């Protein structure tokens, strides 16, 4: 990680605080209108998808219905749910948009998400051993972890995780790897498992039982469409999230270097451990503005649609302090993610040999 002394870190903290204060002072109707417009778009798409789905025996309608429902789930999860639960709209005092009571349209229980994501991941970002989001205890993504033969097949794990992403996220708090190592007992995880069954069951019931049943004669079509919509959402959100911290230049940290860290150091870690990708407005909306992962990680509770506006200021701060502003096209960033997953599936000697070869892509 880039080394900065205490005075430099203080200055970084002040520079970023200034950006944050400016946005906070300006929050108001524009932000409220924005999120309500997105909520309206989500409701319209979901209604459209659910209404069209039974007519899915007409192929183009099936495609439209599945796409509408899939996009509605993406928007609800990424731009509404994730951001609302970060407290980005708590200031509006609208009970429907409150961080601690919002429940989203995915298998993961919101309380579990608030714990593992908002607290653990955002506080201990990319600290190996403390941020379980780094590789999801499933993938080896840096040489901080020793290579084991099982890692050689991790690309299959990655594909499976992406396909069943909502279930992976929902089971994240189970800490299966720690249970296997005997560090926690299954009994301690009972309260979590209850929440998992309640919420996961609710989601499965809705998409795979209720809506197919009420449209009985065309149940298989509705079931297939709902599975398709969930799959679209799973693949897209997994991809966006992997681009956030596992690109080529996103750094990792050790527990020692972060012990008792200052706010300035926390800021530095958020900037160097995250990565952006570029795209048009629609891409940013569908990614819940996690395409501005760096801005999101330094200001997780500012309304996300503000990230594009403050991005230039954050870039200027990065430039001033000599911090790499990690961005690139979606294809380029995602390419480096895939390469990271593949290369760390190899033993270190092979990996070094492979990565030392001149790049052809």
């Amino acid at each position: 990680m880039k080394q900065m002394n205490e005075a430099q870190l203080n200055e970084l903290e002040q520079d970023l605080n200034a950006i944050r204060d400016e946005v906070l002072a300006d929050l108001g109707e524009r932000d409220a209108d924005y999120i309500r417009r997105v909520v309206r778009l989500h409701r319209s798409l979901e209604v459209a998808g659910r209404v069209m789905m039974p007519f899915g025996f007409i192929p183009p309608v099936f495609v439209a219905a599945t796409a509408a429902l899939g996009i509605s789930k993406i928007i609800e999860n990424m731009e509404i749910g994730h951001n609302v639960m970060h407290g980005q709209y708590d200031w509006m005092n609208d009970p429907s948009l409150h961080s601690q009571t919002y429940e989203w349209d995915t298998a993961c229980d919101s309380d579990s998400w608030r714990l593992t994501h908002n607290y653990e991941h955002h506080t201990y970002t990319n600290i190996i051993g403390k941020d379980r989001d780094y590789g999801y205890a499933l993938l080896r993504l840096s040489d901080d972890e020793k290579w084991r033969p099982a890692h050689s097949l991790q690309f299959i794990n990655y594909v499976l995780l992406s396909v069943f992403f909502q279930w992976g996220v929902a089971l994240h708090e189970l800490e299966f790897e720690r249970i296997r190592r005997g560090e926690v007992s299954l009994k301690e995880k009972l309260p979590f498992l209850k929440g998992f069954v309640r919420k996961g069951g609710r989601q499965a019931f809705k998409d795979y039982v209720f809506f197919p049943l009420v449209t009985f004669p065309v149940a298989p079509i509705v079931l297939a469409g709902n599975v398709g919509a969930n799959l679209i959402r799973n693949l897209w959100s997994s991809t966006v999230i992997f681009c956030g911290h596992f690109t080529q230049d996103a750094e990792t940290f050790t527990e020692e270097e972060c012990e008792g860290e200052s706010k300035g150091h926390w800021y530095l870690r958020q900037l160097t451990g995250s990565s952006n990708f570029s795209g048009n407005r629609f891409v940013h909306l569908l990614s819940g503005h996690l395409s501005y992962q760096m801005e999101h990680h330094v200001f997780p509770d500012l309304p996300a649609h503000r990230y594009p506006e403050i991005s230039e200021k954050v870039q200027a701060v990065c430039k001033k302090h000599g911090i790499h502003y990690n961005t690139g096209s979606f294809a380029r960033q995602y390419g480096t993610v895939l390469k990271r997953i593949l290369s760390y599936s190899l033993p270190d000697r092979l990996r070094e040999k492979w990565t030392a070869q001149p790049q052809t892509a």
Partner: protein
Amino acid sequence: MLSRIERTSALQWLGKQLFNREDPAAFFDPLLERINPMWVQQYTPARVERVEDETADTKTFVLKPSKRWAGFQAGQHVNICIDIDGIRRNRTFSLSSAPAQWHSNGTVTLTIKRLPGGLVTNWMHDNLQPGATIGLGEAFGEFLIPEAGEPLLYIAGGSGITPVLSQLETLAAANYEAPVTLLYFVRTQADIIAAQKLYELRQNWTSLTLNIIATNESETPRFLKEADLDEVSGIESRRCYLCGPKGLMDLATDLLSQRGITEDRMHSTFFAAPQAALDTDALGGEVRFSNSDINVSSEGDAPLLDIAEAAKLSPRYGCRMGICHQCSCKKTSGTVVNRLTGKSSGPGEENIQLCVSVPQGPVTVEL
């Protein structure tokens, strides 16, 4: 229609499964609101029918609540919610109309005075137009007219007349026969709220004695005094209703107690605008955790999370540095200073993060 569906528990359960929320009917609000704002389910919408000027700084808003609103008793108040610059503001006001009016044409009235510096009252005066909708809560409050026909004394000040208007009108309609006296304190004759209505009541209802007293028309302020009460015949046996500024209510309570009127025969109500703390005020203060019914005092820059934990509460928390919002909860009143920004909050209801909020004066938190 959806609210009716919610009443059956099976459908309520199904709604929760399908829409992932405790109030499933409100799921469609963003769409319904576009079609007709009166269809919103999250709160009870009320349409502004008319706005009438009472005095230079007081207006009466005639509202028509949606059909599911449950009604009220004379003297009760309601919470209203209004979005101002993206922020939902909740305030409590007394209803100034009689329940009979709501039964006959479905309207209720709020009579609201501009508060100097008040965010909501000034916004309502300047921006709330006929046709707009606001949110209305169910009526509540124990400031109610007696069941038996006892003699009554009302002492009201300024905009404190509003619940009294509702009660007087109700009593007059029932042709209440026991004597009723109203001592109404206003700054000047120009500040009499609902003057016309009060004079009409006096004319048509012989039980009412009306005494309007201007406090600020002479050199020295003219407050409530013994002589005013001497004029009220049989005052010892009257049930008393007080509504107005704190100074007036304290004075009236003292004077009435001296005449042997017991507390259970004195009813008072009034909503004063919460006062914001000054920047120079010391940090720390009395903290009330309302859900647990615990009061503690704090000193210095201890954040509410530490204060709550010291009081043996265990609120949910995470990073303890203002990032994760795990400890976000609702402050119902009081001012807090945000440790990260150094800025003071407003005095009213809002969401705060316990780990970075330091009380500045008395604070009440829903915990």
